């Protein structure tokens, strides 16, 4: 396949997300402007100007009208997707990291990092249809995890919130009461900080990636470990194909090891694994730096990866991808 290279960001990529219909791709990076691209040919549509810090993640509403972003400048902003105007700014006392709309976009979960004595927290905010009615008050705030929460998403039917972070423990919270329902087992769980979390299309299972060079597949309701995928590199990003039983892991070496290993150009790869038998299907090389973000198009026919090198690589699969026999 011939990947489409998009160099819209000068700094490393942090997050990639497709809209529900799969025609727009949103990219967030450490430069302060999230960008939206057309997902078929990679043409840039626009950028959202307004943040003053690295943008760590974003989420897009189902009708692709609203975008929410979380940034290190201690704010999370709501944007109008089409025009790029800011609709509302949520202010926090510490950098915002992960943002996720609930199904129906009436609520959103925004995590904040531990900062200056404040512990990390998950803020649940109500989102109104009309931006004029929007207020900044939280419905409730969840606290408890030690260390940074890298990703918090809504569980099936908005009943729960699933969070994963630096303390390598996955937590499931009740979204009505804010109580902690479950924590992942010490033995099953990751041994090092979890960097990423991605759920399946139906939300019944999700995959977490960690710096311990593995990714694990979990059941969303019972929080049981289903599968483990082992690689040679710390995992920074994970994604599941909506079409086939494939799982993709992206990562890279630790920064400390960079000068001591041979970083031959274009050798960082996104590794494909069979979801069920945990075996490696192959790798797609090309990035010049560790891969920090991965996303599958909802139609399953293409995927994109964002790296430390600031490039977004958009791959449309060849015919033989769909007939891979494991």
């Amino acid at each position, binding site marked *: 396949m011939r990947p489409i290279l998009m160099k819209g960001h000068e700094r490393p990529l942090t997050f990639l997300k497709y809209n529900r219909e799969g025609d727009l791709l949103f990219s967030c990076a450490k430069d302060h402007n999230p960008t939206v691209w057309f997902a078929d040919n990679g043409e840039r*549509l626009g950028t959202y100007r307004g943040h003053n810090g690295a943008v760590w993640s974003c989420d897009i509403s189902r009708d692709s009208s609203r975008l929410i972003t979380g940034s290190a400048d201690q704010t999370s902003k709501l944007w109008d997707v089409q025009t790029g105007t800011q609709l509302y700014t949520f202010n926090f006392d510490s950098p915002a990291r992960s943002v996720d709309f609930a199904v129906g976009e009436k609520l959103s979960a925004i995590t904040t990092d531990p900062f200056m004595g404040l512990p990390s927290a998950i803020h649940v905010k109500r989102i109104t249809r009309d931006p004029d009615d929007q207020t900044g008050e939280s419905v409730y705030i969840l606290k408890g995890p030690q260390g940074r929460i890298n990703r918090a998403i809504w569980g099936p039917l908005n009943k729960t919130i699933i969070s994963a972070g630096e303390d390598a423990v996955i937590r499931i919270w009740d979204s009505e009461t804010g109580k902690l329902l479950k924590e992942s087992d010490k033995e099953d769980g990751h041994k090092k900080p979890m960097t990423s979390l991605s759920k399946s299309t139906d939300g019944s299972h999700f995959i977490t990636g960690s710096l311990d060079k593995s990714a694990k597949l979990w059941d969303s309701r019972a929080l049981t470990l289903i599968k483990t995928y082992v690689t040679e590199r710390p995992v920074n990003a994970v994604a599941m194909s909506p079409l086939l039983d494939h799982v993709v892991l992206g990562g890279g070496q630790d920064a400390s090891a960079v000068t001591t290993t041979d970083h031959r150009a274009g050798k960082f790869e996104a590794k494909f694994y069979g979801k069920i038998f945990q075996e490696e299907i192959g790798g797609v090389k090309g990035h010049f730096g560790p891969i920090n973000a991965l996303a599958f198009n909802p139609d399953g026919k293409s995927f994109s990866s964002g790296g430390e090198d600031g490039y977004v690589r958009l791959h*449309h699969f060849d015919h033989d991808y769909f007939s891979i026999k494991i």
Partner: protein
Amino acid sequence: MAVEAAAPPSKLRWGELEEDDAEDLDFLLPPKQVFGPDENGIKRVVEYKFNDEGNKVKITTTTRIRKLASARLSKRAVERRSWSKFGDAVNEDVGSRLTMVSTEEIILERPRAPGTKQEEVKVAGDPLASMGKAGAAIMVCRKCFKKGEHWTAMCPYKDLAAPTETSIDKPPSSENTATSAGATKGSYIPPSMRAGAERTGTDMRRRHEENSVRVTNLSEDTREPDLHDLFRPFGSLRFYLGDVGNGAALKLDVNMIMGRLRIFTTSINLFVVVS
């Protein structure tokens, strides 16, 4: 998404013009011909025109049309296609090179077949055995290990095995590449990553001896550039071109250390003696 290559216009010489019928000049130029996209997606457009000097000129434009993706878009998505640009994209012109199609063809590389490791250990024994054969060409394909049949590049079983630099999986690949890179580029390698560190009992000097391959019976005219060309598929090597001596059977000494073939993991210091 379309790669264009224009062939230079071919000037028709007057001699050819005579042959070709001078009538062509009187009629209109031949019409533009389009050879539509064939199964490789190549479209050729042949046009004729008169250039400044009044010569008839044929211009062939070869284009490869690649369809990278077909999007069956919903109604809303089609509307979004016509949204106007905003933010930093407002001043973008069509020629901006923000979005480019990669010139390299990237494939989903399947992992190598298991069994490769054992085969490599075996082949070390074979060259030793063939040492005695006079004039035997040592043509070992690194992929299927059939001697004397084909070179690695011509191996019909290309898919099975991996390139030798990454052939041994454990210790982890980063360490392997570290040693080969460090030695080949002459760059700094920290003590933890040097070849000698983890492998017990090996220091820098012995490493030189261990990785040496001695190739004899080369032609007298052999020079370093030839050797570089010959051994390029095997990676980055250091050569020592020795003195001319007496002819002898081509020998390939392979040093095996601790039962493992280490020449594939670190750089090879090649001492070449022309004899």
